[in-house]
């Protein structure tokens, strides 16, 4: 056995060396890691998004409104923009690339926009009336050489009312609506303006070279990993204090939590609710705020059981919203019994709020001819823009509906594919009773966009096929009324009708839970889906 002893020695030495190496690496990592992250973070805001992908940074980014929040409104401006600097009231519109505008008294379809002067795109191209016309042609003129069907398709409902547009002079543009339409400005907030030179130069590859006028400039994009933006020193508005913003797509809530706890990011969207207390005690800033947003089921009212109003109301009575908000989500949402929440100008106190009443739900189902309930399929997302924690929330709703006899099969698909499906309407080749998709109700145009007969699919986003002539009349009056007080009163009436007809199952309003590292200063959590990053500094 003697020869083996030398072998043994070699082994021992090798093992020792291995352990030594490993411990060096690990300890080195511990120290080096923390230090490196700290220094890299100076002036750099790293955001953990809830999307699974980097939004395609075209003028209507993919990944839903989360793409708009972090990419669209950072790289681009529209003629008007959301003022997100206040946290105590719902965000309103302010001047963007248009400094001011007039609505003609003689022709109620004519709007005149006076453009901001001296603004340049990130590539140096000056912004003027031609850029606006170019951007509109790109979306509205199918025979224009730069028409982009895909972007036009996803901007769809914001384009419905624009009849024509023209350059009045170098710094003035006129837009005409098809009929009097008072919500135009809200539509324009979603139409972002790219550099015409960049679009022409890059053509089909434009998404790799997005160029706008926004507070941040595009730097680079690594698929599935990060999108980097640097501050635009020459921004016409408030120049950002941050040097750089990095977006990371992390669709798993627990991975977002890990990322902010380890310092890899200093801003995380919707971490797991269970972590709120822990994060607070660690000194993180846990932010919430009410804002116009709803987490509903859009029902297929065109055929099947959901055609019956009583069935739809029954489902609305079957859900324990308080339990979901308080117990499942730890207070990160408030119950939604209609489109808007209590306290909002468009909330109707006339509508009877949907309480948790399984007996009433069963009674309604029996009246509708489903005493033994029925089965149906719900299409739900796995993560993404405003969908909160869809997996557990859907399982919760599934249980409540099952209790009154509605047997739901949950089919979960990835967020961007769900969004694509949503834009294509309910599938024709299989039974789908509802699509779970969170929707912002930030602007008055949300009402007609989601519920008017004029917006019935495929003309608009009313994909469930819901239609009520009385509602159409009220919405029509609202969108042709140029008095804000009157408009709000009408939308309040509309809220009551929509609650009563229940074309959706109203579930909860998101409170926009997000976590910021302790050293982030100057951010206002607005009452809006969007966010203004210009005021943020890291100290």
């Amino acid at each position, binding site marked *: 056995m003697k020869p083996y002893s030398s072998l043994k020695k070699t082994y021992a030495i090798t093992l020792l060396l291995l352990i030594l190496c490993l411990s060096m690496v690990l300890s080195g990592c511990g120290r080096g890691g923390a230090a490196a992250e700290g220094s890299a973070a100076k002036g750099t805001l790293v955001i953990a998004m809830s999307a699974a992908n980097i939004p395609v940074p075209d003028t209507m980014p993919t990944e839903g409104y989360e793409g708009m929040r972090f990419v669209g409104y950072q790289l681009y401006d529209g003629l008007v923009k959301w003022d997100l600097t206040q946290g105590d009231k719902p965000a309103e519109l302010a001047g963007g690339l248009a400094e001011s505008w007039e609505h003609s008294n003689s022709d109620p379809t004519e709007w005149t926009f006076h453009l901001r002067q001296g603004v340049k795109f990130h590539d140096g191209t000056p912004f003027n009336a031609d850029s606006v016309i170019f951007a509109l042609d790109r979306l509205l003129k199918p025979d224009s050489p730069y028409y982009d069907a895909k972007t036009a398709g996803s901007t769809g409902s914001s384009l419905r009312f624009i009849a024509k547009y023209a350059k009045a002079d170098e710094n003035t543009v006129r837009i005409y609506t098809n009929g009097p339409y008072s919500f135009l400005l809200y539509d324009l907030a979603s139409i972002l303006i790219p550099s015409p030179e960049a679009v022409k130069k890059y053509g089909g590859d434009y998404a790799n070279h997005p160029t706008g006028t926004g507070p941040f400039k595009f730097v680079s994009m690594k698929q599935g990993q990060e999108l980097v933006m640097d501050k635009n020193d020459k921004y016409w508005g408030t120049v950002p204090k941050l040097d750089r913003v990095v977006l990371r797509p992390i669709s*798993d809530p627990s991975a977002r939590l890990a990322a902010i706890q380890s310092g890899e990011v200093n801003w995380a969207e919707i971490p797991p609710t269970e972590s709120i207390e822990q994060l607070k005690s660690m000194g993180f800033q846990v932010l919430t705020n009410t804002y116009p947003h709803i987490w509903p089921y859009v029902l297929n009212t065109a055929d099947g059981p959901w055609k019956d109003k009583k069935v739809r109301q029954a489902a609305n009575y079957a859900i324990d919203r308080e339990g979901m908000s308080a117990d*499942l989500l730890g207070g990160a949402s408030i119950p939604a019994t209609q489109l808007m929440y209590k306290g909002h100008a468009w909330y109707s106190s006339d509508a009877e709020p949907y309480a948790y009443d399984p007996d009433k739900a069963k009674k309604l189902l029996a009246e509708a001819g489903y005493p033994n309930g029925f089965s149906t399929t719900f299409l739900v997302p796995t993560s993404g823009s405003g969908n909160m924690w869809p*997996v*557990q929330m859907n399982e919760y709703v599934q249980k409540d509906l099952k209790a009154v006899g509605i047997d739901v099969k949950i089919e979960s698909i990835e967020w961007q594919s769900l969004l694509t499906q949503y834009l294509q309407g309910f599938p024709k080749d299989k039974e789908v009773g509802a699509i779970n998709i969170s929707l912002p109700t930030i602007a008055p145009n949300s009402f007609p966009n989601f519920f008017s007969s004029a917006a019935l699919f495929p003309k608009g986003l009313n994909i469930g096929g819901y239609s009520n002539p009385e509602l159409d009349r009220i919405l029509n009056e609202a969108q042709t009324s140029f008095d804000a007080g009157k408009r709000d009163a009408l939308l309040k009436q509309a809220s009551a009708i929509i609650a009563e007809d229940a074309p959706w199952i109203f579930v909860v309003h998101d409170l926009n839970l997000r976590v910021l590292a302790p050293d982030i200063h100057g951010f206002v959590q607005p009452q809006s889906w969007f966010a203004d990053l210009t005021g943020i500094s890291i100290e």
Partner: protein
Amino acid sequence: MATNVQSIVPDAASAASLPKQPSQAAERWRAFCRRRAALVALVILAAIVLACIAAPWLSPYDPYAGNVKERLLPVGSAGHLLGTDEQGRDLLTRILYGGRLSLLSGIVPVIIAVILGGGLGIIAGYFKGIINTLIMRTLDILFSFPAILLAIGISASLGPGISNIMISATIVFIPPIARIAETAVKEVKKEEYIEAALSSGAGTGLIIRFHVVNNIFSRLFVYSTTQIGICLMLASGLSFLGLGVSPPTPEWGFMLNNLKQVIFIDPIVTIVPGIFIFVTSLALNIVSDALSDVLDSKG
């Protein structure tokens, strides 16, 4: 793990040579019992299987109903031995009920693959020439995909669902099993008694039935037991990716997927379903390892 389906082939094919006398069951059982680790593993395995079958009698809880106010209770809570999940359902109950599907999805594909793959392999091994080439080359092509990727691809094409996971797992396991059967048949055919049978004028079907099937059975048996653990992991991996059951059906891989959300708050609760996958497949590996040693004529 699940991707290693093929890797066992050279080992098992060379290790499991032909059993000489198939009637030594008692002696082999004694040999098996001498391996304490294997015996312990077998007991654990039996306990898990029985507990899953007897779930309704063992657990007072409904696997689908929970109290959200009692969600994510830690392991060892009063009334909830393994705590509760994210909807407040008793975790042990969910694991026992979930184990039925998980275990089934580990066993069923292997059994079907043994029948189909074994059949194909026997046909290919018995008939030379074009039939052999056709069958074996086609299977070779399936074989040239990494197992998990093939399974993911098939599952994705068929759509989510536990039965589709089983179908895709079956397809993954057919080629290696067919290959073993084919090799075994080829070897058996060289044996004298087949030649004797052939020269005595017995029909083709009879020969296959009496000799070949009988003689390759133990080899396929040994190999397929090694595959059950692998199949269990493959299936739970696919479920973990969300290609399997849909909520609220309990299944180990899917439960792990749901609970991973709270890993940073309560890692223990999160880890529980994984322990069951791990222990079951480890026990299966130990048992099948011992089995192949014992059934191997040298052992």
